[in-house]
């Protein structure tokens, strides 16, 4: 089977402006969604996909309003069902470049099942999860990613729900691409989203996003400029896992799990530092990377990116094969197949 690409390329070079719609953007001033939108608008021209062949699909939530702000085809569906709707869009017309946009509640509370199933099938779509760790549009209830113990409208005494880690969930569901990005680093987000677009199969990009109204500074402990360099590690395929303001910290694998070390201390050298391989089939190390927090830096960038035939390819190949070999060429053939007889 040879790799098939279905989405037609544009014969002109688009700019960000080509994708900016005429609708007023109605997010709160200061909302992280603005930056994510900007990143997306920057990615589209880079994919060179024909504008008419891009389709944005979303659920319901603040973040899910995004199709209105992008001048492509778009479907603002119902809460939690974006992945299911998008599956139909893509299967019916594989030549569309389908972008699914969801909040953390939309994608992992009500929409959790469709998310894990689209990922399992490796349908060729691009998923962006706007993770503000809260239900924004309904004004501040805890979501499946809200931090344990947090006080919200529906948890006045603190939540007792352990949050999902989206990366772990995606990889547990046989995900082939998972990356994490930050709303506060738009160029990096654009870069990551472009890699996601280039991935064949379901790509999931989780963007840590700030909801300044209902969950302000949810990610500040790692995104604040003052601490960011030490609290995050930007992973690059084939490169050693280095981080820190002085770029002298790194991750070492101790035989059972990862640990943060300082190069030059306790005899640690660059050779001890693990090299990031986003392409290994086994999920073990990728899970460890996705899970990092606390003493370990939070991993940003593409954590997993493995090659596996996409649902779209497999589907179209099977269709083609059936068409080539099928007994019936039209419905009349079918109607008259098998046991039939003439009444005069």
């Amino acid at each position, binding site marked *: 089977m040879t790799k098939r690409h279905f989405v037609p390329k544009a014969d002109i070079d688009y700019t960000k402006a080509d994708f900016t719609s005429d609708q007023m953007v109605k997010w709160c001033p200061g909302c992280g969604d603005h930056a994510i939108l900007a990143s997306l608008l920057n990615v589209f021209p880079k994919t060179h996909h024909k504008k008419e062949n891009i389709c944005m699909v979303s659920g319901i939530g603040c973040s899910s309003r995004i199709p209105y702000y992008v001048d492509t085809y778009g*479907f603002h569906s119902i809460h939690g069902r974006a992945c*299911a*709707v998008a599956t*139909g*869009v893509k299967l*019916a017309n594989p030549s569309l470049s389908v972008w699914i946009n969801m909040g953390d509640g939309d994608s992992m509370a009500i929409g959790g099942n469709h998310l894990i199933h689209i990922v399992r099938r490796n349908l060729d779509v691009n998923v962006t999860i706007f993770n503000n760790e809260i239900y924004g549009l309904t004004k501040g209830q805890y979501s499946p990613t809200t931090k344990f113990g947090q006080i919200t409208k529906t948890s006045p005494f603190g939540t007792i729900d352990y949050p999902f880690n989206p990366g772990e969930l995606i990889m547990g569901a046989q995900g082939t691409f998972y990356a994490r990005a930050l709303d506060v680093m738009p160029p990096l987000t654009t870069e990551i989203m472009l890699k996601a677009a280039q991935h064949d199969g379901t790509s999931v990009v989780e963007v840590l996003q700030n909801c300044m109204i209902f969950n302000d500074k949810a990610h500040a402990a790692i995104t604040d400029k003052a601490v960011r360099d030490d609290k995050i590690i930007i992973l690059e395929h084939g490169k050693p896992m280095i981080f820190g303001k002085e770029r002298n910290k790194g991750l070492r694998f101790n035989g059972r799990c990862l640990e943060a070390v300082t190069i030059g201390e306790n005899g640690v050298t660059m050779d001890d530092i693990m090299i990031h391989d986003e392409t290994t089939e086994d999920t073990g190390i990728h899970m460890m990377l996705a899970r990092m927090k606390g003493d370990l830096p939070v991993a940003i960038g593409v954590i997993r990116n493995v090659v596996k035939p996409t649902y779209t390819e497999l589907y179209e190949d099977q*269709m083609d094969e059936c068409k080539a070999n099928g007994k019936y060429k039209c419905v009349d053939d079918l109607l008259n197949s098998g*046991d039939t007889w*003439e009444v005069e």
Partner: protein
Amino acid sequence: MMQGDKKVTQKDDLVIRFAGDSGDGMQLSGTLFSDASALTGNDIATFPDYPAEIRAPHNTIAGVSGFQVHVGSHIYSSGDKCDIIVAMNPASLKSNLKWAKKGATIIVDIDTFTDSAMEKAGYTGDPFSEELEHAYTIVKAPISSFTERIGSEMGVDKKVSEKSRNMFALGVIFYITHKKLDQTNAYLARKFAKKTQVVQLNQAVLREGYEFADKLELIHSHIVEVATAKMPKGRYRNITGNVATAWGLLAASERSGRPLFLGSYPITPATDVMVELAKHKALGAKVFQAEDEIAGICSAIGASYAGALACTSTSGPGLSLKSEALGLAVMVELPLVVVDVQRGGPSTGLPTKTEQSDLNQALYGRNGEAPLIVVAASSSANCFYWAYTAAKLALEHMTPVILMTDGYLGNGSQLFRIPKVADLPGITPRLAKPNDPNYRPFRRDPVSFAREWALPGMEGLRHRVGGLEKCPDGPLTTDPENHALMVYNRQEKVNRVANYIPDQEVTGNPDGDLLVVGWGGTSGALTLAVEEMNNEGKKVAYTHFNYICPLPKNTGDILRKYKKIVVCELNNGQFAGYLRTQFPECPMRQYNKVMGLPFEVGELKEAFNKILGE
């Protein structure tokens, strides 16, 4: 073989029920018999009666599986009570005797009536009491032992030969119904082409059954020849409702030029629609087995947005789950066909039994004012036309359409006159023109009120749809007047479908004293009951609804003509209630049955006679 001294009675129709353990192959016997009958000129209808369990313990009542065949000159349904019953073990006899007509012929495999099997079936005394022998013609055939013997003669293991016991019973039936074995022999040869021994064994057992019957004097006075049917010229086949539904959708896809997409999730008794369509990738049918019913309908809505003739198939509990997304389909005004093969409810209910109790849910089961089209098939064969019609209406009126069938139609089979796809009414999807500067997502055709369909990929028509209220030009708005307008438009669009459908017809005696009203899968028994009553000198009119929402425009005119109206349905009166909301001026009686079973002609006639006498 057939000797001249035997008495052959002519009959208009005959009902035969094959009953045995789930693994006893009763479905195959029944199908072979009905196919042979059809080929020799009878009209036919069949209905399988499965247990809810896959294969409950051997010899228990829970494990009994049945298959009923109705053959004759003009057949509307699979029949009420039976003329002949085959019971392959004590449990089958025990649980099926209630279906026997007075004086019916009952063929049992007497070898299976061991003490332990009788006990498992719940018999305490002798199953063949004197009364029983009196009331019926009981043929005690040594089916197991004969079959085993033939097998061992051919060197076949008992475990294998056992599987041919059904052929013995079939042979007896062929004899009693005065039919030849050729066609079935040919079928067996075709079906097991690669297993000569199996063919030989089955053919030998079949013949053995036939000859056993020939030797049994008891039977000689009970041979019947069933009248052949006078059917319109054409090519025919036997078809189940679920297959007919699938094929109707395929035909609509071909005629409309819109590729077929089915997003669905298995559920009894609707699964076979998906199973059938999954076979036809060669015809361009894309089937997506979703993770649940919600993903089934949502994927269909997405596919519809992308330009497919999008469908989803389910039964009651699944339709419940699709409620929210159906509302979305109403809101975005995209074509969508939802097939509901009804079963006994509420909740999981009686999954393998039939009922018409999803009508209210189809009409009303969504939040907000969410009108859509509802149509219903009324026979296994016409599922083809109603699926086709549902697709045509969806594509031409840009709206979801619910097609109601039921377990009785879906699993039952009937003769189907094969149409030419080219002869079916044309279907013209309302596709927008690329780069049309006047394209607006919710601009409407002034006559039908349908909007245009712009597909992603088309140049110059980029737009957004969604579940929030929008203005005709596309953007979101919460403006009160706009909402009122859009609610009106969506309703009016559905109402105006009445301008595109034929008038409702009245059959039976239109000048009758009583109007019988039916809808959906009950037309077989209702037609027959009305016909028999008119033949008996009563005056009964009958009207059967396939277009449910909107109703044909002359519905009120018809209803207002009759003093006595009885609405008959397999539920507590949902269609009657719906008619009352629109024609409160017409007093209506109800005849309802909620037993997981179709109507019987007898009970209907009794009810109608009572009303006439009032």
